[in-house]
């Protein structure tokens, strides 16, 4: 910068180098021109002040109604936040979450490390699960940590995930006085697929479609290999069974092709759980865990109710949800307790409900049964 001649001293004797720049102020501009802005003068002294006052008072007058039409510029445009909420677009992204299948409880993550690699602030940490017997790594994740406090919500992890296992949540009310609780472990990250489906239906449909496409391609190319997350297969199959039948009448039915993969996935789950630290739910604030449990329960209940009696689905689901959020049904407490009870004697009998996931599954089933009973009672 040649600003040494432009300091505040007024003794300038040497030729100011800065000022010899030759400037052409009139460029030839293609399509359009340079216009000089008009420096207006007020027409009469004080008039423009009254005009400005008029604008403000006009806004005051009009602000007693809400600004709901975006073509308008007057009216209250704020929202009363806790009561009123703006609808969040599907694309909204806040913090990453992990998905698991509602029905089976299978996590979609295969610990491929793509997200950990792409994460710009490097807040994703994961440990691949190992088969307890052979010690070989299996495509599942035993621990998954995201530091929410350092996450910058860029959404790259969700973008790169080939198994649609990690998605961006819409929950933005994360503020807490407990800073360590923002280092979220796997148990805190897991959400059912139906939860994500409820916040971003189109996006999930797209994900399903592309997963199905991949599956189809794999079916043709390498029928027995794990092309997509094994846990996805059931899901995808269920969603596309109808279309599948209509489109490709001559192709072999999907279950045949994916059966080995499915088995592999099933085999992996006990291993996952045995390696997992038992009570990671303990790190979560209890209200959050309770909310999560409530969502899960509601999904479960809804599904069950739909199967049982479609007409009474809604009240039943609500009833179940309220029942589960009350302290009388401490599901969240039951979960770690169950896993704690069963996990320490590590690779015990394989058919027992050893792991956390299985425990949860059992809990879900128990819940369903309880709810059905409650429903029956109501009737």
């Amino acid at each position: 910068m040649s600003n040494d001649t432009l300091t505040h001293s007024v003794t300038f004797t040497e030729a100011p180098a800065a000022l010899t720049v030759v400037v052409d102020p009139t460029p030839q501009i293609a399509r359009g021109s340079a216009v000089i802005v008009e420096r207006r003068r007020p027409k009469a002294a004080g008039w423009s002040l009254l005009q400005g006052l008029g604008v403000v008072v006009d806004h005051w007058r009009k602000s007693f109604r809400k600004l709901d039409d975006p073509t308008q510029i007057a009216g209250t445009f704020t929202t009363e936040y806790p009561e009123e909420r703006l609808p969040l677009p599907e694309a909204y992204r806040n913090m990453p979450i992990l998905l698991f299948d509602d029905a089976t409880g299978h996590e979609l993550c295969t610990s491929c490390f793509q997200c950990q690699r792409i994460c710009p602030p490097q807040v994703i940490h994961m440990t691949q699960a190992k088969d307890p017997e052979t010690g070989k790594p299996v495509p599942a994740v035993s621990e998954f940590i995201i530091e929410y406090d350092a996450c910058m919500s860029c959404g790259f992890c969700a973008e790169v995930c080939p198994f649609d296992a990690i998605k961006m949540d819409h929950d933005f009310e994360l503020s807490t006085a407990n800073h360590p609780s923002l280092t979220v472990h796997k148990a805190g990250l897991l959400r059912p697929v139906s939860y994500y489906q409820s916040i971003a239906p189109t996006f999930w449909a797209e994900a399903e479609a592309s997963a199905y496409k991949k599956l189809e391609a794999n079916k043709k190319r390498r029928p027995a290999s794990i092309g997509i997350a094994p846990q996805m297969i059931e899901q995808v199959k269920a969603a596309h069974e109808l279309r599948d039948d209509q489109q490709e009448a001559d192709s072999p039915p999907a279950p045949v092709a994916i059966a080995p993969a499915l088995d592999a996935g099933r085999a992996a789950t006990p291993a996952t759980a045995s390696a997992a630290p038992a009570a990671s739910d303990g790190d979560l604030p209890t209200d959050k865990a309770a909310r999560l449990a409530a969502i899960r329960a509601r999904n479960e209940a809804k599904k069950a109710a739909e199967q049982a009696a479609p007409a009474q689905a809604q009240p039943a689901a609500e009833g179940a949800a309220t029942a589960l959020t009350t302290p009388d049904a401490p599901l969240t407490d039951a979960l770690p307790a169950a896993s704690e009870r069963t996990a320490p004697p590590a690779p015990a009998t394989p058919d027992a409900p050893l792991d956390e996931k299985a425990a949860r599954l059992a809990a879900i089933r128990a819940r369903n049964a309880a709810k059905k009973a409650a429903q029956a009672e109501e009737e």
Partner: protein
Amino acid sequence: MITTDELQINIGPQHPSTHGVFRMLLTVDGETVVHLEPVFGYLHRNHEQLAEVNTYLQNMPYTDRLDYFNSMANNHAYALAVEKLAGIEVPERAEYIRVLMVELTRILNHAGALGFMINDMGAWQTPLAFGIREREKILDLFELVSGARMMCNYFRFGGVVRDIPDEFIPRMKKLMIAMPAYMDELERLLRENEILLARSEGIGILPREVAVSYGVTGPVLRGSGIAYDIRKAEPYSIYDRFDFDVPVGSVGDVYDRFLVRIEEMRQSRRILEQIIEQLPDASGGHINPKARQNVRPPVGDAYARVESPKGELGFYLVSDGGTKPYRYKVRAPSFINLTPLGDMCRGYKVADIVVILGSIDIVMGEVDR
């Protein structure tokens, strides 16, 4: 009138009107500024060095944080630089979406910048609230397409991350109706306002030659009377397809910058109208399918620049053939425009310097990097 001592005053780093953590070391004689020394660097966070240990794609969200008012424009400049370096083609629809976002960003920025400037003049937030109201509508659109309001991270090499949803264009058209009403109202509120005239006319004059010698760009340069707009001077992207004018000032004071910004918002709206007309309907054309996100550009360097709302924003990248840039340099308009502040403020009153600072329109995230 009455002689007093020369007094040293620190305005900032914690001060309501320094737009972030910025310090102005003032030497005042009474209320007249004798000398002003801008001190910055309080927000330095090693942006450029950090970029050299990240991959090209990983840097994209960091550019959002440079000038957090205009993340789309920052994304655009960086994407252009990487595309230039790696030779990535951008589909036509993606180009249109990009320009659409960037011009919306320009309106958003100017609405905010004018509001903040007038807030510094002492108007108790009304022009700012009006600006924020319009900005809010635009941010809703950004949220719709990118998922975030400010840190959009929307651009990718070879296009944008996802196509605009169906409801975008209808909402956009509604917004286009509100924009001129907002601008007219702002002018009615302030353009001829005698207090604003008294506070801005003849204040902070940046003569044309001095502006050029400092390398000032953007509305500040155009306010000083030079019709230099990169969209015209070196049309990047598809800017050669649109009709729009370049507003310039005649004196180079705060008032000219104010007027230039209002006029630029109108011109941006003109561009948006043309985009809505011309937007090619190619589904899936939002990104070049061949473009890999994990780019590995050939050895070489590239400099790409855009007309960000604040001025010329340039990214200079050197590649050593790896996945990470060997050198990454940002030419930040706020920083360059801030350098003549000391000269611009000299001889004016203490109350004027906050207005002059507001009229330059800086974001400290970009200045300190």
